[in-house]
């Protein structure tokens, strides 16, 4: 699953640490999500979307490999 968290962060000019604090996880978790190494839970995905005031599907997008 790919995502545009990095782009959204850049728009608001906030760091991974700031986002992590806002959604209640560690900086490492945000980094792992951004790089696609960790797929967040629905709750965390919704928190991230809420924080950026966008819909989940505007940030997270399924890839072909997710269907296999």
């Amino acid at each position: 699953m790919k995502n545009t968290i990095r782009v959204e962060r850049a728009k608001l000019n906030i760091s991974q640490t700031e986002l992590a604090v806002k959604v209640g996880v560690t900086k490492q978790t945000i980094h792992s999500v951004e790089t696609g190494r960790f797929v967040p839970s629905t709750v965390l995905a919704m928190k991230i979307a809420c924080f950026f005031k966008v819909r989940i599907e505007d940030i997270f997008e399924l890839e072909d490999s997710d269907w296999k």
Partner: protein
Amino acid sequence: MRGFKTMYDYRGKVAGMVIAAVGSMLVIIQKLAPFNVFRSMNAEQHYYLSAWITVVGLFSIAFSMEKHEDERVKKIRAGAMQLVIGLLIGLLLALSFTGIVIGDFDLAPEMLIAIAGFYLVFYLVVFHIGLYTDILWQYDADEIPIVENIKKNWWVHLVVVIVMMGVLLLIFSII
């Protein structure tokens, strides 16, 4: 798990580090210059007691949460535990098999089999309770009707109970 505290908070990790450090220092001291604290115990018992204290400290570290325990940490922890328990049981089975085949009973194959068997039986019991009965696990959804769930999966419970009883009887008969 509902009603059960499976992890201590971060203070448990700090306490575990202190206990493990003290225990390991005692192990080194007991190895270099044995000394007795309890009259009823000999030097060897004191040495093993020090090692036991160290392992208790490690246990506390292993079952304590990180300062910031989020879903990624939980996932890594579950994966690590799964891998390590798998390797440990594999090691126990390999050692016990070696002991049985070469007839070296200094390896105490019966104890190794019993330990591996108990691990697996308890794991399977707890896992199946969570999977089919949902007595202990709490989901964010509404209550799952336990009786209905048992009725729906009665054959699974029957098989699990029979297999568990059989394995436990086997283990006790070996010991």
